């Protein structure tokens, strides 16, 4: 078993955002692996076993431990498997996840809102500013080269509206042949994947895949690295390339107008983007083309991953607060490229922009 390969060297302890926030070893990757190694000694203690199951969900699944491990331990895989085992073993301890599961089963989004409302909120807000946007919403029979997969956060959260506006404006400006999945979009399945519910996730993916095929899309783009993990690695999209929006625009644009930078900027690179998907060049390439100066933030989690906002919101808050205090970015605008990271940054009152907002501004105001 992979856990036997862990030599307990401890290199994953201090870099773990959970350990950083709590300072206690049971939250660290090494601690959790150790507990798995001695599980035969402690499993009979019901309270201990229950506590252990809880700690499995006190993790952002940021992958930093997995990236650091030199012993060949598949840490991320272990965390996924163990989460699934925990829910199978004691479903009653995870009843708080039932509304999420039910929402995804019934209305195919994490908020439990009507499926047909996916394209309502932002369309109401943006239709005047982006004429013809309604026509971009997918309906049976429509086709396009590019399908835009917004994901649940960007479909329903008003806090994402500026990013959406910039995304659509940029697509329009660049005359991209695109459609938005709209009411036909199911959740990508990422939340279920994070709790080890592969069956539920697969049902959601099947529908998405069919819609994209029906639309004859050649590419699907998304701003959400979590959605991209699903689209790229789990949707089995044959002949349809899944891209992060920064990848798509970076490929499309050899040069861009310069962004009229008036504020100090810093860049928070989303864990799922750089560590899991290994997309590191394109966001920075776009920023370079835009001519912006920015400070690279530590490659560390914002606290928003792994469903931690749902499983332990206090820890999630603590992680972002610690980073905010440590990195001194209060007087900067924190750039990112992930709706979930954006929510975290906003929750701690940091100014934040998605890279596409800079691109859109540059295209609007700059000279091509």
């Amino acid at each position, binding site marked *: 078993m992979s856990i036997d390969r862990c030599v307990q060297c401890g290199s994953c302890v201090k870099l773990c955002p959970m350990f950083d926030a709590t300072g206690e070893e049971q939250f660290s990757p*090494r601690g959790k692996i150790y507990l798995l190694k001695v599980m035969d000694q402690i499993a009979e203690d019901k309270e201990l076993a229950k506590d252990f199951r809880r700690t499995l969900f006190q993790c952002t699944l940021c992958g930093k431990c997995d990236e650091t491990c*030199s012993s060949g331990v598949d840490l991320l895989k272990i965390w996924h498997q163990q989460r699934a085992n925990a829910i199978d073993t004691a479903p009653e301890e995870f009843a708080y996840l039932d509304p999420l599961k039910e929402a995804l089963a019934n209305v195919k989004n994490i908020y439990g809102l009507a499926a047909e409302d996916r394209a309502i909120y932002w369309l109401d807000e943006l239709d005047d500013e982006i004429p013809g946007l309604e026509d971009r919403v997918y309906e049976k029979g429509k086709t396009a080269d590019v399908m835009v997969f917004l994901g649940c956060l960007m479909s329903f959260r008003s806090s994402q509206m500026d990013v959406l506006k910039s995304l659509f404006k940029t697509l329009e400006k660049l005359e991209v042949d695109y459609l938005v999945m709209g009411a036909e979009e199911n959740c990508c399945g990422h939340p279920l994947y994070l709790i080890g519910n592969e069956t539920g996730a697969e049902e959601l993916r099947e529908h998405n895949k069919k819609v994209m095929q029906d639309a004859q899309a050649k590419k699907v783009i998304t701003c959400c690295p979590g959605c991209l993990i699903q689209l790229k690695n789990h949707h089995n999209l044959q002949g349809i390339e899944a891209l992060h929006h920064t990848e798509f625009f970076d490929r499309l644009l050899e040069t861009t107008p310069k962004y009229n930078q008036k504020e100090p900027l810093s860049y928070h690179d989303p864990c799922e983007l750089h560590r899991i998907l290994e997309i590191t060049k394109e966001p920075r390439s776009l920023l370079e083309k835009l001519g912006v100066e920015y400070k690279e933030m530590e490659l560390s989690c914002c606290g928003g991953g792994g469903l931690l906002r749902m499983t332990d919101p206090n820890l999630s808050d603590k992680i972002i607060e610690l980073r905010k205090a440590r990195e001194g970015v209060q007087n900067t605008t924190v750039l990112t490229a992930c709706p979930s990271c954006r929510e975290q940054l906003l929750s701690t009152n940091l100014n934040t922009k998605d890279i596409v907002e800079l691109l859109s501004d540059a295209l609007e105001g700059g000279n091509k």
Partner: protein
Amino acid sequence: MKLRDVVMGANASMYQRMDFKKIKGVYYPKTEEEAQAAIKHAKENGFDVVPKGGGSGLSGACTGGNRERFFISSLQMREILTISLVGRYADVQPGATPNEVNTKLEPLGMKFWVAPSSRDVATIGGLVSTDGGGNDTWINGTMRDNMLSVNMLTYEGNHLIIDKNGVKSSNVELAEELNKKGMNLDDIAGAHGTLGFITEIRVIIKPLRETKTIGALIQFDNFDAMGAGILQTIDNGCPVEYGEAIVMAHEDVREGLTPPLLILEFPKDFELVFCNANVREISRKELTRLQDIRIKLPKRNPNVGTQIGLFEGYGLYGDSLEHMGNTIREIDEVLMEHELAPFVKYGHAPSKWYLGNNSPAYGLVMHSREIRPEGKTGKEIYRAVEDIVKKCEELNVTPKPEHKWLYSDEIKKARIQELRAVIGSSFNSFIFEPDCASDTLSSMV
């Protein structure tokens, strides 16, 4: 039992199985006052106290054996309290790592010059307790050479400040008694947490070097040639700033290298000459790659099976280094008698360490990993350790030099017991169990 208690067993040694019911509590103090309160609580309940740092050592000392005990973890005491550029020192809490300290120092053009391979997790307090060193110990010395004083709390609640000249304390009588015994920093270095809980260390800091250095890869035909080569660097006083040996490596982790070999970094204007060796200058990029291969060796596994670290380290010096081929052969014979297939051997060279009588030794601090045999019990594997210790004594190899393994270093052990008789004897007591705590340790593999 609580999860936070059980997880105290997490550490890099092979001593991982324990009776968790005997762990009576865990404290993560942030301040000296909190540590003081934790010790007081342990004392009131009559339990042993085990200080724990990063848990990256292979000795198992941080497990506290299998007694009823309280743990005090230093992991939340990681502040860098003072940096004095004029005084060339920094006051640090025990849970800070060398990397954390140097992150603060480097923008100031300064560095704390102790570089163990585990510098990302090994704590400064742990380095004091093991008298740790690293790839630059040859020129920078071990932890004891890089500290000015240590603040320590005893089981009886006394606060001691120990430097190279002696002990100060508000308990004047105690300080006087300890000074009569000549207690100083040498006693704290490598004491394995048996004397008290370290709350603060004044470490020496020095400017970052501006010397231009180059890297070299030195390949030897055999172990004897390697031993002779290391002795040559020592005899010539080579100004090696980074020195690592890869003695042998299983093909799964060798990455195209052909050991035995040395990876050295030294000043550009130094003329490096080796007899009976193939010396090749390497680019900065290749040096970095080799350093990375080396630093990961202790963590790697074979493609099939897993590795096990039996033993903290072998100190090869004098005869045992001169006849290195014989030394390695005899060690491997013992390992193979126990069905432990050698996996990797590597270490710092040229290097320096201190013997139990505080005199320095110079040579190769060699670490070793073996492939864990299928179907062997913990007790059976532990027997290999006992046999290795015996073999090391026979070969004049210092067992576990970097960590001065108290279990077998009778001089150091006797000295610590002398001091414990004065300041209290309830810190990490299992180390003083009869027969080098073999009964306890063998049950923990």
